[in-house]
C-alpha cells in the first residue's frame, strides 16, 4: 500500500481536531525470514497501535464505511468503543454483524470495500478498518472466552446448511441467533471449507478458523463432518425429513485445467490439490502429518488470482528455489489483491505477464520438465471488461520447470444439482438464485461460490447474510 505523506487538514472536520492522514502500518515478518516458515506474515497491531489508529477515525455522521461493508458492520461504533478502551463492547458490536471477525479482518479486500468508502480516503490513507477488526477478534481470542450475543427464543424450526465455508458459517450463526435449530453438513473431515483447505496458514492461521467454527458451535449449531449431501442424504431427503429450509453453500468445486498437451504429467498440480495438501493436510509438517507433497526447484504457477498468489507463496515456503507466476494479461488486469501480489514479490516470486503455456513437455519419465510458451498481446475488451489476451504468432519460446500449479478457477461440483432436477442451474453449472438467495426449488436458498462460480470470502458471507434474512422471514411467517 502506498503511504500518503501529505498531512493537510480536512476542511469538513471539526476545527479543534487535527486529522492524521497517515495510517499506521502493521508489523510484518521480514521477507527473508518468512520465506522459510508458515507463520503468519502480518503479526497484527499492539494495543497502543490499535488505539492510535482508531483515534484517527473522525466518526462521520454519514457512515460510508458501513455502507461499503457487504455484511454492514457498524464500523464507527466498534472503532469508538475500541478507542474508549472498551474492547469487549467493540467485540460485541462486531459480532452483531459477523461471526467471523478474525477471518474478515485478515482476508477481506477492505481496500475495495469499507476502506475504499472511508471519508479519509479522499484526502489521505483510510482508517485501517480491517486491521482494527483483526485486533479486536484477536483480543477476544486471547481472553479465552466467547462473546455470545443475545439469543432469540427457540422458533421450533430446523434448518440444514450444506457446506461449512464462510457462507455456510454465516447463515448458520445468523439463523441460530434468531432461534432456529441449525444443522451443518460438511463433506471434509474438518469444518471451515476454503478457509481450511484453500487460504494458507501464513495468511489465515487455522487455529483462528477453528476458533470461529467453535463459536458457531457455541451458538448451538450442530456440525456433521464426513457427510456428503447428494450421497449420504439427498437434498429432497433433507427437505422431506427434518428440515424446514436448506441453505446450499457447497463451494467452488472441480478445478479447471488448460486442456493443452501434457497437462496430466506428473508434478502438475491443480491449485486445489496443491493448497489442500499444504494447508488442510499440513504437508509442510510431513512426516509429523502423514500427507506428503512433492516439490521441485523451479515452479511455475499459472494464473493471476489470489489462489495463484497463495500457491506461489506456499511453493516458496516448501523449498522451491525459483517460483514464477505466469499470467496472460498484464499486472493491471491481475485479479489478485494488490497487497498479496506485493507480498509475493517481496518473497522473491517472479511475475511473467503477457504469456501463457501452450504445452507441457515430459522429461521422458512422465514428469514435467519444460513448458512451451507463447507471448500474448491485449486486444479488444471481452465480456469481463478486461482486454482480451491474444497470442502473438511466432513468439514461441520454452522455459524449464519441474513443478507446475494450475490456478485457473473452478467449475461447480455437480453432485447435488445433477440429482435434484428441480434445482435450476446456469449453463456453467452454478445454482441460480434471486437477489435474496432463493433458488428455483421450494424452501432452498443458496450462496457463495456455488452461486457466484468463484469470488471472495466476504461476498460469500454477504450472500449468506441476505439469504439468512430471507430464510428467517420465511421461517417466522
Amino acid at each position, binding site marked *: 500500500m502506498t503511504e500518503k505523506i501529505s498531512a493537510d487538514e480536512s476542511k469538513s472536520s471539526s476545527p479543534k481536531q487535527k486529522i492524521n492522514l497517515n495510517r499506521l502500518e502493521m508489523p510484518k515478518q521480514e521477507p527473508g525470514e518468512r520465506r522459510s516458515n508458515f507463520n503468519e506474515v502480518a503479526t497484527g497491531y499492539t494495543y497502543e497501535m490499535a488505539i492510535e489508529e482508531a483515534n484517527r477515525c473522525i466518526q462521520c455522521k454519514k457512515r460510508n464505511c458501513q455502507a461499503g461493508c457487504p455484511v454492514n458492520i457498524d464500523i464507527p461504533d466498534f472503532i469508538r468503543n475500541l478507542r474508549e478502551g472498551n474492547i469487549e463492547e467493540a467485540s460485541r458490536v462486531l459480532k452483531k454483524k459477523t461471526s467471523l471477525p478474525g477471518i474478515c479482518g485478515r482476508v477481506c479486500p477492505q481496500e475495495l470495500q469499507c476502506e475504499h468508502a472511508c471519508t479519509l480516503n479522499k484526502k489521505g490513507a483510510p482508517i485501517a478498518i480491517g486491521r482494527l477488526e483483526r485486533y479486536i477478534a484477536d483480543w477476544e481470542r486471547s481472553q479465552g472466552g466467547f462473546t455470545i450475543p443475545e439469543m432469540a427464543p427457540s422458533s421450533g424450526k430446523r434448518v440444514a446448511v450444506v457446506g461449512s465455508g464462510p457462507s455456510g458459517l454465516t447463515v448458520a450463526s445468523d439463523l441460530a441467533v434468531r432461534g432456529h435449530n441449525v444443522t451443518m453438513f460438511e*463433506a*471434509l*473431515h474438518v469444518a471451515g471449507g476454503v478457509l481450511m*483447505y484453500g487460504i494458507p496458514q501464513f495468511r489465515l492461521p487455522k487455529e483462528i478458523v477453528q476458533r470461529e467454527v467453535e463459536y458457531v458451535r457455541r451458538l448451538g449449531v450442530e456440525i456433521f*463432518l*464426513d*457427510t*456428503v449431501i447428494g*450421497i*449420504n442424504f439427498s437434498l429432497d431427503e433433507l427437505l422431506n425429513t427434518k428440515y424446514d429450509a436448506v441453505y446450499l453453500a457447497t463451494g*467452488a*468445486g*472441480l*478445478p479447471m*485445467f488448460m*486442456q493443452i498437451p501434457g*497437462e*496430466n*504429467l*506428473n*508434478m502438475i*498440480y*491443480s491449485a*486445489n*490439490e496443491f493448497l*489442500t*495438501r499444504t494447508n488442510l*493436510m*499440513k504437508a509442510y509438517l510431513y*512426516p*509429523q*502429518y*502423514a*500427507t*506428503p507433497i*512433492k516439490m521441485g526447484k523451479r515452479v511455475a504457477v499459472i494464473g493471476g488470482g489470489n489462489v495463484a498468489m497463495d500457491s506461489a507463496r506456499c511453493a516458496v515456503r516448501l523449498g522451491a528455489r525459483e517460483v514464477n507466476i505466469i499470467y496472460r494479461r498484464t499486472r493491471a488486469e491481475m485479479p489478485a489483491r494488490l497487497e498479496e501480489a506485493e507480498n509475493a514479490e517481496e518473497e522473491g516470486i517472479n511475475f511473467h505477464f503477457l504469456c501463457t503455456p501452450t504445452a507441457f513437455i515430459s522429461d521422458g*519419465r*512422465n*514428469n514435467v520438465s519444460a513448458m512451451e510458451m507463447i507471448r500474448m498481446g491485449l486486444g479488444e475488451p471481452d465480456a469481463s471488461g478486461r482486454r482480451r489476451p491474444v497470442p502473438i504468432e511466432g513468439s514461441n519460446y520454452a522455459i524449464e520447470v519441474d513443478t507446475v500449479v494450475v490456478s485457473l478457477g473452478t467449475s461447480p*461440483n455437480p*453432485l447435488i444439482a445433477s440429482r435434484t432436477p428441480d434445482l435450476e442451474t446456469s449453463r456453467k453449472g452454478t445454482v441460480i438464485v434471486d437477489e435474496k438467495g432463493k433458488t428455483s426449488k421450494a424452501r432452498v436458498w443458496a450462496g457463495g461460490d456455488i452461486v457466484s462460480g468463484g469470488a471472495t470470502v466476504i461476498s460469500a458471507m454477504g450472500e449468506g447474510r441476505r439469504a439468512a434474512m430471507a430464510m428467517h422471514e420465511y421461517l417466522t411467517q
Partner: protein
Amino acid sequence: MFPIHAHKELALGVHRMSVKAPIVASRAEPGQFIILIVDEKGERVPFTISGWDRDAGTVDFVYLEVGNTTRQLAALKPGDELAHFVGPLGRPAELGSFGHVVALASGYGIGAMVPILKALKEMGNRITTIMQAPDMNRSFGEEELLSVSDRLIKAFGDQTDDSPASATGAMRMLLADQASDPVARVVLMGSLCVMRLVSEMTRPYGIKTMVHLTPLMVDGTGMCGACRLSVKGSNRFACVHGPEFDGHEVEGWDLLMSRRCTYADETALQQSFQCRGCSQW
C-alpha cells in the same frame, strides 16, 4: 469416531477390515469406495468397498500393507477407532444382464470384486472369474469369489505371460473360445499393468471391458483433480466420474502408472510395488 468392528489378516500383508459406519453402509453399492483417516494427523486414503451389512451398519474393505497408513491400519484391533470415514464415494459399477461375464481380480480387488459379481450373478449373468495372486502362498479369498462365480480360475503372478496359469494366459484361453462360448463383458480390478494388457486383448473382439482405477486422491469428492485421467479425449476425475471406466476409452496408461507412483518412493514398503520395467524405476 468410527470403531473397528472386525479385522483379519487374510494372507501375508493382506487384511480385511470391517468398520462401523451406518450412514455409509446404508448407501453402499458395488464398486464404490470410502476414504478414511486413521488419526487427526493422518492422510486421506481411499479404499474400495468389499462388502457391507446395512443392518449391522458395517462396511468392509480389503487392503494391502504398502505404505505408512496401511501399516498403521494393520496394527489396529477391533474396538479401536478411525478418526474419519466418509463414503460411499464414486459411481457404482455398471450392472446389467450381459450373459457371460469374465472378471479378473487381484490384490484388494479379490475382496472388492465380490459385491459386483454378486449383483451381476443375481441379474442372471454367468460368471467366470480369474483370481490372481503373487504366488500360491499369498493366495486368499478363494471361497468368497467361488460363491459368486460359476467358474473360478486361479492364476499366479510368478508364472510367465504365456503360461495358462498366468492371468493374461487364462484370459487368452477364454477369448480363444469366443466362437463357442462368447464373452459378453469383462470386468477388471487389479494392477494397472494387467488391466491395461487385458483391455488391449479384448479390444479386437469389441468386448466391453470395464476397469476399476485407483489413482491417487486427496479429497475424493471432485475438488482437487489429483485423480484426473484422459478418457476419450476429455479429462475425467476417477473420484466422481469413476472409479469404473471403459478400458478401451482410457488414454495415457503410461501417465496413469507414473502418476500412481508419484509418492511410492517415499512411502512404499513392498519392493514388489516397484513393478518390473516401470518407467518410474
